[in-house]
């Protein structure tokens, strides 16, 4: 990520130390992960120790310190999806992609995450891929959906 762009985001928040989380969120949203250089720049500009930046970047689930795949798979593990069989769906996704939650495959094709409720419980179990929700999933359908992504 360009250093200028990072600076722009920091300037938008007036280099306020209390805006650390908001700055990290914006960089995560644009870049999909937080490179070390970005963290260092933020620590320097916000006058926050690097340990605290790292504490925040590892404490909150929204941040990733490694690059992400082209397609983000979110398997909803909310209670409503769970009682409707979400764990079987997750098993299938793991089997098909060869990765576990939190991981990205070597071709950088898929990143897999579990989430605790996407709020479309009527459609459970739900798998969200690149922001599009696929509802009423069963293991067999999961396989069909995943083949549509390159």
């Amino acid at each position, binding site marked *: 990520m360009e250093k200028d762009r990072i600076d722009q985001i920091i300037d938008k928040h007036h280099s*306020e*130390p*209390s*805006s*650390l*989380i*908001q700055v*990290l*969120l914006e960089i995560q949203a644009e870049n999909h992960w937080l490179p070390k250089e970005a963290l260092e720049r933020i620590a320097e500009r916000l006058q*926050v120790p690097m340990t*605290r930046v790292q*504490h*925040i970047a590892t*404490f*909150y*689930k*929204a*941040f990733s310190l490694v690059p992400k795949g082209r397609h983000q798979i979110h398997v909803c*593990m*909310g*209670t*409503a999806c*769970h*009682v*409707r*069989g979400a*764990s*079987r769906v997750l*098993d*299938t996704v793991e*089997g098909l992609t060869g990765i576990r939650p939190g991981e990205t495959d070597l071709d950088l094709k898929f990143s897999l995450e579990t*989430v*605790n*409720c*996407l*709020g*479309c*419980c*009527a*459609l*459970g179990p*739900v798998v969200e891929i690149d922001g599009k*929700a696929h*509802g009423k999933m*069963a*293991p*067999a359908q999961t*396989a069909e959906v995943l083949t549509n992504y390159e």
Partner: protein
Amino acid sequence: MPRINSPDELEKVRQEVLSRRDPNEPCISICAGAGCLASGAGEVISAFQAEIDKQGLKREVNTKGTGCPGFCERGPVVVIYPEEICYLQVKPEDVPEIVSQTIKEKKVVDRLLYVDPSTGEKATCESDIPFYKNQERILLSSNIKIDPKNIDDYLAIGGYSALPKVLFQMTSDEVVEEVKKSNLRGRGGGGFPAGRKWEGSRNAPEPIKYVIVNADEGDPGAFMDRAVLEGNPHSVLEGLIIGAYAVGSHEGYIYVRQEYPLAVENVNIAIRQAEEYGFLGKNILGSGFDFIVKVHQGAGAFVCGESTALMTALEGRAGEPRPKYIRSNVVGLWGRPSVLNNVETWANVPLIINKGADWFTQYGTESSKGTKIFSLVGKINNTGLVEVPMGITLKDIIYKIGGGIPGGKRFKAVQTGGPSGGCIPEELLDLEVGFDELSKVGSMMGSGGMIVMDEDTCMVDVSRYFLNFLTDESCGKCVPCREGIRQMLKILTNITQGKGKESDIELLEELSETAKEAALCALGKSAPNPFLSTLQYFRDEYEAHIKEKRCPALSCKELISYYIDPEKCKACTICGRKCPSDAIQGGKNLIHIVDQEKCTKCGTCLEVCPSRYDAVRKISGEPVPPPIPEEARTVVRKSKQK
């Protein structure tokens, strides 16, 4: 839009907004809440806009995407005004017919109406549908009427009328008194009386105070705060401004999870519009009162829903709770008095001011007043958001509104209160819903998640599920929570895998007691609840797992096997073709057998086996019958017997 500088000017603006709107003009409201969007509401909205354009009706017909009315099960939901015709499960291909029939000819499209499954009767209006009819929707009913991105819609339904009343006709004391009198209790889970919280803050000596909206709705299976914030953000803002005036705060925060991008967007638009109109900023409506609001996005941590952790996060640090020797309404954000209330609590405030505490207290039980929104999910026919008066029985919610359990299954339990709550069994379904009533039976109100479970849900697995969630979300600051819950999860996982020991239940009880007594915040203190309540009502299930290695609900993977009944199998080969792990041996005219070594227990065979054969079943606690001998495997079809 110039700023509005007095209550009179506000009324003029409101009249002007209303005069631009003809109540008889057709208006198409399409739910654009997250649930309906996931079922394709976005495409439906575009289809309506294109069709209206095509038929040249753009001037006469108003089309808008609105907030969530609650009936997610039958989304996308479309309501046509002024007749209030409610169409369900609308698809883009239905749109031309709706426009030419209902809008132009004023005829109802019968096939899109709600059909009562028991009587077969059709319901034309929202209010005729049993799902809505049995609710008391004082907050949610506005959602379908307003476009959340347009402040004029909120003004048109009488919005921002409580604000001038407070600023010009009431002292801050009177506002606090009114809220105290209404006995409005925190809707986020704790149930602490909002009025008393406000009073504590107002009386605190520190001059700088804060008011905060907690929109970090993290309970899995709960999305009512999102529906309110997405669908009617101005109602929350108005409540917040009133609260700020009451406690003497000039700065407010809305802490909303980044997992709710639409809520973040809508609330930001709402703040901008409120600033333009003069409901926020300096000298609000000419009253001399100043107040600004900032939005802070959460970065994904369940514990940040806890008040002190949320304030720590607002300060830009890792959201870890603090001990509450002094309440946060006295020493909170940046060490200053801070009133933190949940979205739904704030949204109730303008209604209480407008209609009075007496109106509010007519709903509810002795100790819990008003209404509560629940998200009714899980094994239930009508999934969605329901707003009911406190004191309604669980049975009425589940059967009258929720329409009962799908697939003819038997009800087993309802889980309330999110991960910190508990499971309530069938024999307690006549329980009245209220803060204290739910606590008495070992559960809690929580933020309002209500997850219905049927006979196929394993209660040991449910308690393992919640502890897994909490282990993941524990911030790690205090030992009883960080280590205790983790050990509980380990033991519960062992039990669900058939590795349970006789002494496990006692050990779990001991760990529960420690966490309850010694954990720092509510997350740890209430973490054992899912275990304790399921143990209280479903001890036999724990014992079956431990002693017989059997899962009575046939749900725990390690304790079940899939088996094809040779008597029933008609060798149709469907399961063999669909099995993702090639675990089914068989072929044409050959009875299928599950290879237990290869089977991953995904359950696909059971799902795809045609119901007329019903040959696949799950077995638990007993050995799988040996495969039938090769020579007996050939299926002889009746048609070929002759």
